[in-house]
């Protein structure tokens, strides 16, 4: 009986130690102490919007999905809807993407009125460390027509307040 209790106590101690290690702030790269933040903030931090456009030509755009991969000095801090009312609802994305440099964003609309041509589908707000321009890659995963078929489209972006 004594040894069972001893085993339980040892297990609990090990579990507590492991959990303590896992949950300590240093274990999460996105979670830095104020000291580390102060150190790394020697370089200037700025926020810029990244406007993402999809051009589906004459075909109405019913669904779209793209992926953004940026360098480590870029962090995604927010996602804003596009300009067309068909995509007024918030786009889908993994919340884990926030404060990271990779995100997959997608949306669809079953509305009658769908955008054609070049339309701004989303604005991604970026936090950039340093003075350099953000280095990122946009990949259009898929664009869909009203009937659900895949359509050819191009994706472009613009950094800054101007659209």
């Amino acid at each position, binding site marked *: 009986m004594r040894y*069972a209790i001893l085993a339980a106590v040892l*297990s609990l101690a090990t579990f507590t130690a492991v959990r303590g290690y896992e949950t300590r702030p240093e274990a999460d790269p996105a979670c830095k102490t104020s000291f580390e933040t102060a150190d790394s903030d020697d370089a200037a931090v700025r926020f810029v919007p990244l406007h993402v456009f999809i051009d589906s030509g004459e075909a109405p755009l019913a669904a779209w999905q793209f992926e953004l991969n940026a360098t480590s000095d870029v962090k995604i801090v927010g996602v804003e809807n596009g300009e067309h009312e068909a995509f007024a609802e918030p786009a889908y994305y*993994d919340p884990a993407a926030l404060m*990271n440099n990779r995100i997959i964003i*997608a949306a669809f609309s079953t509305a009658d009125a769908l955008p054609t041509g070049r339309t701004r589908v989303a604005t991604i707000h970026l936090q950039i460390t340093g003075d350099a321009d953000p280095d990122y890659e946009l990949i259009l995963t*898929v664009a869909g027509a009203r009937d659900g078929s895949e359509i050819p489209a191009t994706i472009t972006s613009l950094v800054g307040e101007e659209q």
Partner: protein
Amino acid sequence: MNKDNEQLDALENKVAKALGEDLKALFSPAGRTPDEVDRAVLDATRKRLVRPRRHRWRLVRAGAAAMAAVVLLAVVLNVTRDHVGRMHPAATATAPADIDHNGRIDILDAYKLARRLEGPGALEARWDLNADGQVDRADVDLVAFAAVRLDGGA
């Protein structure tokens, strides 16, 4: 005076003799120890000497039990964590979320399911991805979240 000295000497001799006998009795060997006592002492000594080894084995066993418990705990935690992960809406739908069966999950799967919800066609039970007994917008959201998952859902 001589008489007093003789009396004192006699008394001193008497006391010294008694003291000597007492000391002799006190420090003289107490005779041979019986064999039974020897054996009993030997047994007790052996038991005392053997006990720490048993105690050590018990500690080893307890340590092994603790290690096994830690491993078990880790396994349970991993299973639990995996289970919690599956509870996330984005993680609930994987293969069943491939609505159009083209081998990948993307927003078109969600779109097609949404269209089916709005259309007159019958809804298939396999589209009830959250297993709540009905195919509705929540299932569409599951498919869409699976498409945008960063850990390989798409």
